[in-house]
């Protein structure tokens, strides 16, 4: 947390020309990141952006911090090794739905369960952009693409549900077009110790244009988006009169002022795993609005902290050889004279 920013947005802009397609949602995400970072840190030399392969993974080149553009799907491995070796750093991982969930799916789930203290920005455009338009593991079933002319057969992942299933301790969702919300989610992630996972809906205007238009178009968005905030009732709708009510253990959408009052509306508790699970189930549902915000956030010991603790404990308690020379000379030895 920064009390008084000393850096400016420009300090986070690198000298490299940005090369995404004009109109790509990535531009907005980059700009909001650069804008919010002065509020996140005063020491940009401690910031590292690590990515895999894909459109989103070009991101580190455009941030004037340390950056490492690694190989397809493997950014979590490099980021984990970096954070373990150098726990002082603020490590950010930029990935996409293909990089993070297809080729790199294994690393992603293990990162989340280990809870290494780093931040994941997963750009989900539900398509492969860099390889020119094949379906991704978050594409809806039946997607017509170059590789699936008759429609894709595979059923998609639900990213926030997957993250929760992998025991993620911070799971949030936002969207490229809602600039303030995007900024606030990045800030929240930075403040959380442990693996912070943000799914960012991002429009690919070339290969999957309009994938999230329901959530961004003026006419539909207020009916389709539920902004969740800790301690606040789950209210949405054009008139702000719709809400989520729990009927027993079943959530339902109700209209305030009809059979239910504001007191009947579920209040978001981001530390409640059941609420987190419930909200993640709203994704791609016809009945429920799309929840944006921090779905779930709890403090859990981080892998890197636990490792530091073990190292200290070992140093304190080990009885055996203390120096390398002792160790070289340990065991049964004998002299040849």
């Amino acid at each position, binding site marked *: 947390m920064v009390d008084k920013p000393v850096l400016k947005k420009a300090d986070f802009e*690198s000298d*490299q020309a940005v090369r995404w397609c004009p109109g790509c949602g990535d531009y907005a995400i980059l700009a909001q990141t650069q804008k919010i970072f002065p509020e996140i840190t005063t*020491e*940009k*030399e*401690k*910031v*590292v952006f*690590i990515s895999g*392969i894909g459109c989103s993974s070009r991101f*580190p*080149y455009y*941030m*004037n*911090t*340390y*950056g*490492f*553009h*690694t*190989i*397809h799907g*493997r950014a*979590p*491995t*490099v*980021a*984990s*090794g*970096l*954070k*373990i*070796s*150098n726990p*002082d*750093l603020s490590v950010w991982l930029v990935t996409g739905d293909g990089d993070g969930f297809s080729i790199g799916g*294994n*690393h992603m789930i*293990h990162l989340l369960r280990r809870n290494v203290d780093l931040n994941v920005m997963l750009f989900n455009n539900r398509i492969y952009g860099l390889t020119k338009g094949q379906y991704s593991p978050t594409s809806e079933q039946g997607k017509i693409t170059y590789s699936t002319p008759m429609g894709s057969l595979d059923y998609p992942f639900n990213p926030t549900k997957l993250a929760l299933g992998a025991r993620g301790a911070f799971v949030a969702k936002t969207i490229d077009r809602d600039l303030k919300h995007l900024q606030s989610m990045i800030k929240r992630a930075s403040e959380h110790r442990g693996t912070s996972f943000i799914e960012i809906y991002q429009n690919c205007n070339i290969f999957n244009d309009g994938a999230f238009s329901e959530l961004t178009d003026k006419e539909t968005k207020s009916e389709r988006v539920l902004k969740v905030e800790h301690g606040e009732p789950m209210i949405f709708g054009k008139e702000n009169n719709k809400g989520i009510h729990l009927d027993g253990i079943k959530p339902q959408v109700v209209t305030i002022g009809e059979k239910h009052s504001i007191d009947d509306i579920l209040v978001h508790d981001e530390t409640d795993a059941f609420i987190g699970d419930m909200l993640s189930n709203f994704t791609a549902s016809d009945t429920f609005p799309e929840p944006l915000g921090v779905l779930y956030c709890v403090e859990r010991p981080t892998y890197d902290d636990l*490792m530091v603790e*073990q*190292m200290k404990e*070992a*140093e304190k308690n*080990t009885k055996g050889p*203390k120096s*390398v*020379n002792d*160790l*070289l*000379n*340990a*065991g*049964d*030895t*004998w*002299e*040849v*004279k």
Partner: protein
Amino acid sequence: MAKNVSNKTIDNVTIRFAGDSGDGMQLSGGRFTQTSAVVGNDLSTLPDFPAEIRAPAGSLAGVSSFQIHFSSQEIHTPGEKPDVLVAMNPAALKVHLKDLVPGGTLIVNKNAFTKKNLTLAGYEDDPTEDGSLVDYYSTHFIEMGKLVTNACEGIDIPSKMVDRTKNLCALGVLFWMYDRPLEPTIDWLNQKFKSKPDIIEANVRALNAGYNYGDTAEIFTTRFIVEKAKLPKGKYRNMNGTLASCLGILTAAEKSNLGITFAGYPITPASNILHTLSNWKQFGIKTYQAEDEIAGIGAALGASYGGALGITASSGPGIALKTEFLGLAVMTELPLVVINVQRGGPSTGLPTKTEQSDLFQAVYGRNGEAPIPVIAPTTPGDCFFATYEACRLAVKYMTPVIVLSDGYLVNGSEPWLIPDPNKLEEFKVEFAQEDKDEQFLPYKRDEETLARSWAIPGTKGLEHRIGGLEKQDVTGNVNYDSDNHQKMVQIRAQKIANIASELPETKVFGEKSGDVLILSWGSSHGACRAATESLLSENLKVGHVSINWISPLPKDLGGILNKYKKVLIPEVNTGQFRQIIRAEYLVDAIGLNEVQGKPLGASKIEKKVKDLIDG
């Protein structure tokens, strides 16, 4: 009871302990090794265990063995055919009897020759009853089960536990035969089972029972004395390749003041490196068991990017998975050490058996022009020096380095002259620092080595981006220009070639010119050296060169090859190093190739050299 026992002094002996996986043969072998080391013999060992964790008891698949060759002379191999075979059950006899030298000593645990065990081993008739063994070998049938049962009478432990002390009984017999002290083993038992006095008591009694059996049974009439070996002066310990590699890593950490992050995924026969280092947290070594092989090398590379030395270890199949990351390490020019403990391939192959068949994989196995230095330790103890050098040069040249170890080296052991870390090559590390007068250029190079600087996150003013896309010379920016690519490919190759200037002068053992040069790499060293010694004693014009560095090769090697009429390259593969040597030097090298899951034997090499000399 006094009996007439004569002592006979001999130069060297090879003993093989063989039994069921549950019979504790590795323990017997290990204790015999330790004792022989302490009494001052030179020695070399070869454990051999099944790939299955718990193969059915008594089955052929479940046989485990341990061979030790010990001597009053300097030796280089774990021996070929054993002079003594200890067979704890019918399956062990079936598997190993064919290797025992004619007239050799055979010690058989008679109690294990039950109908069930005989059937499991595929014997129709009991070979201990039909006289066949006695005719060909100096055979001793010992009822070890009975011996330990009697010895352990009165100790309150289950009979199953008593039966498990048979391996100590067998060891006791061998200790008697070779006149070795029991104390080191008793001390070890006391240490190992500190909180279980009954177990200690049972094992000590079993050990003594075996020893006393040798002493009193009329059947043993000769004890063999193997004197101390004349090894170079100094302090010794027994050393296996796993521990040696780990000590090499630790010494590198101490001399460089670098943090070490070891990240790996369990795989036979490399896992023990992870286990050993995981116990050394007090020395600041961080270990990370990753979710898969790829994550292991990725985390190691991430650690190196962050200013620690990242290390990973695996075996062939795991190295295959790590390959893409090796390319990234080449492109981003970060230090990284990758230890490949080779095993039989292809695919899952022979997980517990040794082979030298990942040479091409190490030297060539990547997409694009991706040169990586490759160093191969030659003996278990040499794993220390090879791993240390790999760490040092990875940092000095900002490159991944592959250490080509193998199953034989990591599990085998030898007496090891404990080195003085102060006498190793210096290992200094300088991280890049901000220079206010000059813009930081990540791919600006040291003029001599061509290495770029190591600029680690957290350093003010050096913020920069790296990645797998082609780099512009000097700036390190992404660049697709054709001339730049050509230049960068050449620079990366030249940087690795420059390492040749670090290599010591190549030593020729034996004749400096003549009829045949035996050229070996890695763990084939021992068999080749033993063969050369034998051939030289017959006044043949033979030399031996043992190669550590395969990439780059020593600069003076070409000149040496030309001094012999013929060059023979024995290796445990179908001729991979031979192809490299032929390509590099246009020398018509001849191969001696065996892939039988074990190190080469010296006798075949000797025969081959003689055939070559005879034309």
